[in-house]
């Protein structure tokens, strides 16, 4: 809240002394704009800073290229007037919106101001948020939501106002929030406690994160949940790691600068809207670079795991891999990267987590990520080591097969160029989901490739059940059968039948992927895609 000093108060000028131009009104505009910059007032701003948080205006300045912010609705807020109609007090609305640039490209930003009534509904002008969503949609510009507070959600305080009434709830701007997910990149940063509608706004984006120790998200906060029974803290109910692991958000930021930097970096891989194509960066890493380390990256012992993230970093342009969703759906690693400068979407199995087998949440993450790639025309590189979908009682209770089938549907519906590298295993339905086999199979296998309907290790018991039961020495018989089957397990036997198109030395993979990215580039088609992104 800004208290205006008496000498600042503009008095309506008598008609006979009015100047010929509009300078009094322009001065009044500047005075109101300056008052709005004080946000919730010095005391509220001090509280925000004491918590280690930046103000909405500092955050916007940190996000955008220097001096590029062009605010819309700069003097929207609640005003109080004296008996002569003079403005005596002004509090800005708790949402700051406008346009600015990131790396020279125009974006729309909408930031909640927690210093004005904690971002609550009764201090909001909901139409500002609606217009921010519309601006991004009509101008085909990426949208960044800086979320800190409920930002337009409900408060029972609204019932307590003169002429109070209740209402059937509606989600403001939601048709545009939904439409934007199939139209423009949407980045949502959870920089404070977020509940209800704010939480729904936070997760309705293509890249979302919570700030460690500052960002919290809940359908309803600890006060409401604790009232139902067991007391909970905000950390255990909706801390950043809770939701990075649940998959409600994609990432965790260490501090505000990290959060803003991640938003800028994510957008660097994407077009400004579905009507554009992902921009190529100046190639800085030779496309023909080979890495001898790769030839020994996968252990010969099939029971031993290895570091897939290191393989990804070796194959992609140096320093270009930007992981998304590290803490959930961990059996697959997903992220954006560049090959010879071209942005690509990378999927890579992680053998350290369930051997790379698809859990229900891994399948959900893949579905979300493939939708992102399809929506923004990113070619996909899939590094495959999938022993199947996860098996067992817990996996069945989690409905893993339906989640896997949904990811499978995304793989088969995707039209973006797609290249698979079989690094090791490909078994069962999930292994077969490495790509849509009815398309041209842009596919290579490493000599460590190992595939089939069922892995030999587990398949013998099922396939030779009656023989093993009838045998006097089932252990010896099992060993004999396993030896016989292993003898024909070589990937060269598959390649003889053209069952796998080409086997390559792992060290030669990067040049092949760079060729893929260059061949894929002219095939990318701008426009809205057949299946739309949903949260």
């Amino acid at each position, binding site marked *: 809240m800004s208290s205006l000093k008496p000498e600042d108060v503009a008095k309506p000028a008598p008609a006979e002394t009015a100047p010929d131009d509009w300078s009094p009104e322009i001065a009044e505009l500047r005075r109101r704009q300056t008052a709005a910059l004080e946000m919730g007032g010095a005391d509220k701003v001090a509280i925000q800073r004491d918590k280690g948080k930046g103000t909405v205006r500092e955050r916007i300045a940190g996000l955008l290229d220097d001096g590029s912010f062009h605010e819309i609705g700069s003097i929207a807020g609640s005003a109080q007037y004296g008996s002569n109609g003079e403005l005596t007090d002004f509090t800005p609305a708790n949402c700051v919106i406008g346009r600015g640039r990131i790396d020279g490209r125009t974006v729309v930003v909408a930031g909640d101001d927690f210093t004005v009534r904690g971002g609550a509904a009764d201090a909001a002008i909901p139409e500002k948020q609606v217009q921010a969503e519309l601006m991004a949609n009509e101008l085909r510009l990426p949208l960044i939501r800086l979320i800190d507070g409920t930002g337009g959600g409900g408060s029972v305080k609204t019932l307590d106002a003169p002429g109070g009434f209740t209402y059937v709830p509606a989600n403001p701007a939601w048709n545009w929030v939904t439409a934007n997910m199939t139209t423009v990149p949407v980045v949502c940063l959870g920089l404070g406690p977020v509940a209800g509608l704010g939480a729904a706004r936070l997760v309705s984006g293509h890249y979302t994160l919570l700030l460690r120790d500052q960002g919290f998200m809940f359908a309803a906060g600890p006060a409401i949940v604790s009232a139902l029974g067991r007391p909970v803290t905000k950390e255990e109910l909706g801390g950043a790691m809770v939701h990075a692991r649940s998959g409600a958000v994609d990432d965790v930021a260490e501090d505000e600068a990290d959060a803003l930097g991640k938003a800028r970096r994510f957008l660097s891989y994407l077009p400004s809207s579905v009507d554009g194509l992902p921009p190529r960066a100046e190639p800085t890493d030779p496309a023909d670079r080979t890495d001898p380390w790769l030839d020994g990256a996968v252990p010969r012992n099939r*029971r*031993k*795991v290895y570091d897939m993230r290191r393989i990804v970093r070796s194959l992609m342009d140096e320093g270009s891999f930007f992981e998304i969703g590290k803490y959930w759906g*961990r059996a697959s690693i997903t992220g954006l990267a560049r090959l010879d400068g071209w942005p690509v979407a990378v999927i890579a199995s992680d*053998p*350290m*987590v*369930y*051997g*790379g*087998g698809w859990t229900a949440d891994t399948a959900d993450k893949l579905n979300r990520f493939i939708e992102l790639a399809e929506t923004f025309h990113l070619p996909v590189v899939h590094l495959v080591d999938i*022993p199947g979908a*996860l098996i*067992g009682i*817990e996996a069945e209770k989690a409905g893993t097969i339906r989640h896997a089938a949904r990811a499978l549907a995304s793989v088969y519906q995707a039209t973006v160029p797609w290249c698979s590298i079989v690094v090791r295993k490909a078994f069962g339905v999930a292994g077969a989901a490495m790509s849509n086999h009815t398309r041209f199979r842009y596919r290579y296998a490493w000599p460590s490739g190992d595939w089939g309907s069922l*892995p030999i*290790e*587990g398949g013998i018991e099922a396939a030779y059940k009656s023989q093993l039961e009838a045998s006097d020495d089932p252990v010896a018989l099992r060993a004999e059968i396993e030896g016989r089957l292993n003898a024909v397990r070589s990937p060269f036997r598959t390649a003889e039948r053209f069952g796998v198109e080409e086997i390559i030395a792992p060290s030669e993979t990067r040049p092949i992927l760079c060729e893929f990215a260059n061949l894929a580039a002219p095939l990318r088609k701008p426009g809205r895609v057949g299946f739309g992104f949903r949260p």
Partner: protein
Amino acid sequence: MTTRRVTAEVAGTVWKLAVAVGDQVAVDDPLIVIECMKMEIPAASPWAGKVAAIHVAEGGLIEEGQLLVELET
């Protein structure tokens, strides 16, 4: 001195204990090897420190998130 808890990142069976109580470990040293999806998956130490307690035995079933080892760091 802080006691820190290392929990299982995956469900499975304890294949092997890679450390004993009292051992000094460095970051990324394997503490427990979990057999899961026919693979040997190491539960690596997130911290350097001394093994204060081991809460699982070889051959035992473990669930995701279960306490494996306590470290003094």
